[in-house]
């Protein structure tokens, strides 16, 4: 008799269709064929995980059409099943998987849009902290290079392709044209969770670098110098007003151990 662990391993591989089905003699199913019943588990796993991916990547589904997406998803599930039961984390590797599919080599926008949708999924699962206002710091001495802490849900994505334009074209109310909406045009996107929805904005290089430095805890001084290096006309006051106005700042404080550039 197989030890329990071997039995479970072999059954799991059968369910994921990674190997030929487990020996029918090990199973019973009343009067039915046990291997036919085993297919119920295969279908449950594939269809439920496909549904998870379709919920996370709705625009990607529309870019490639549903049948192709289901095919790609079932291959992804078979080769890269979830490693844990927290399914909010499942799908991180799907954009890279799409990039590796030959059929999609002339449609790089598909994997890139999937990358944006994964960032949205991550943001939706991240905490929202009470935002601070500029007025909170009116009479507080913050030194020359304070740390500016931003919302944990902030995600920054840069692509060579027009991902935000494509994503926006597929939102409710927008007239989607899945063939003409994408172009080779760099787009830099910041997105974050606001309540139960997501806000997305397109940024120029300087503002993107500014937010990138803040998100990675490099401090305001570093953020300003990176932005100015990319665009000498970078407007710090406007950037700060927008940052607070968008509710992205969760704290401003004097660094305990100032980071070197």
């Amino acid at each position, binding site marked *: *008799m197989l*030890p*329990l*662990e071997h*039995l*479970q*391993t072999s*059954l*799991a*591989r059968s*369910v*994921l269709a990674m190997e030929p089905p487990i020996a029918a*003699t*090990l*199973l*019973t*199913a*009343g*009067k*039915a*064929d*046990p291997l*036919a*019943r*085993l297919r*119920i*588990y295969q279908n*449950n*796993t594939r269809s*439920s*995980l496909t549904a*998870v991916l379709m919920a996370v990547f709705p625009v990607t589904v529309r870019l490639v059409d549903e049948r192709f997406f289901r095919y790609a998803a079932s291959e992804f599930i078979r080769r890269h*099943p*979830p*490693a*844990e*039961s*927290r*399914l*909010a984390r499942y799908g991180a590797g799907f954009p890279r998987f799409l990039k590796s599919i030959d059929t999609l080599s002339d449609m790089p926008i598909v994997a890139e849009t999937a990358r944006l949708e994964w960032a949205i999924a991550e943001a*939706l*699962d*991240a*905490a*929202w902290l009470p935002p601070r206002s500029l007025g909170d710091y009116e009479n507080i001495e913050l030194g020359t290079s304070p740390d500016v802490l931003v919302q*944990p849900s902030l995600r920054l994505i840069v692509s060579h392709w027009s991902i935000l334009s494509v994503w926006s074209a597929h939102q409710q109310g927008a007239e989607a044209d899945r063939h003409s909406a994408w172009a080779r045009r760099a787009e830099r996107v910041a997105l974050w*969770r606001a*309540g*139960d929805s997501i806000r997305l904005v397109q940024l120029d290089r300087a503002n993107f670098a500014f937010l990138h430095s803040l998100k990675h805890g490099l401090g305001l001084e570093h953020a300003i110098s990176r932005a100015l290096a990319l665009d000498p006309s970078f407007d710090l006051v406007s950037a700060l007003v927008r940052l607070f106005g968008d509710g992205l700042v969760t704290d401003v404080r004097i660094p305990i151990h100032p980071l070197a550039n």
Partner: protein
Amino acid sequence: MSRAFQPLTIPASAGIGLRSPHISEMLSRRPSAGWLEVHAENYMGDGAGVEALERLRQIYPLSVHGVGLSLGSARGVDRDHLERLRKVCERFQPDLVSEHLAWSVADGAYLNDLLPLRYDEEALAKVARNVETVQDTLKRQVLIENLSAYIAFADSSMNEAEFLVELVARTGCGLLLDVNNVQVSAHNLQFNAKTFIDALPAASIGEIHLAGHAINQVGADTVLIDDHGSRVPPVVWALYQHAIERLGPRPTLIEWDTDVPVLDVLLGEAMWADMLTASIMFSRKQAARGQQTTHARATPICLSVEGETTTSMPVLAAFAAARAARPSTPLALPSLEEEYHAAA
């Protein structure tokens, strides 16, 4: 962020499984619902749903139902996942916590489905160890749910009910009796559903689940699929009635996971469960009184089960099931009546 909630005890009446399409309506309408149950894995992040559940927890008693701990895994439970479950319990302070007698993780993969165990001494020792680990970590008793299954193992040396009885004895865990799962497995694997329910230790059953299932025809095989995608069917109401007659009122959850209907449909199903329980307990009380007097009483009108299935009305199904299976000889079970009054 962890806050202190007022303890809210789950009553021995019906509640509903909280599903994301209903969250905003639950918050704005605050409908009368005995209690709520959530899947633990949906609240392990920090999204908007978590914030909403913190608000709902102030209003409704809560049960946390795990679906991904894989208590049946030969390699033991994932300690990281268990820690996440502990944090969910710490955050929401539920009155009940439950998981399944199943495995879903093997060979490093999570299958997102609940697979049956080979019921033998090896599995029992491993599941008992896993349940003890969970109870020690959470510092509380957990309820273990029976499974809906499509296959079983030829080398099992006991059945699922015998396995659960022994698991309770070894670990002190409670049981979550999923009546729909009993019906699904009993049909698919050809055993008697009522015998299964009767074999479980009544005192250990701390919760009941009710749901609908699909009926699929694959060649000559009619298989019941546990899809939680429809109303509770008459056959499950009848089995629920059998359970309540034996157990007395228990916290009873309406589960609905696919093709989730409007909130009022779920609340309606919960109401039918409460009405059926009330009807059973009322009949029992009448029967107990009848034993003490010699007066003849009018016999209630008895609807046939066939009659009401055509109406698709669960309330009729519930009442008919209660009446059709009315005990022919009065039973006196005073301890259960006491429980009912305490809960009412």
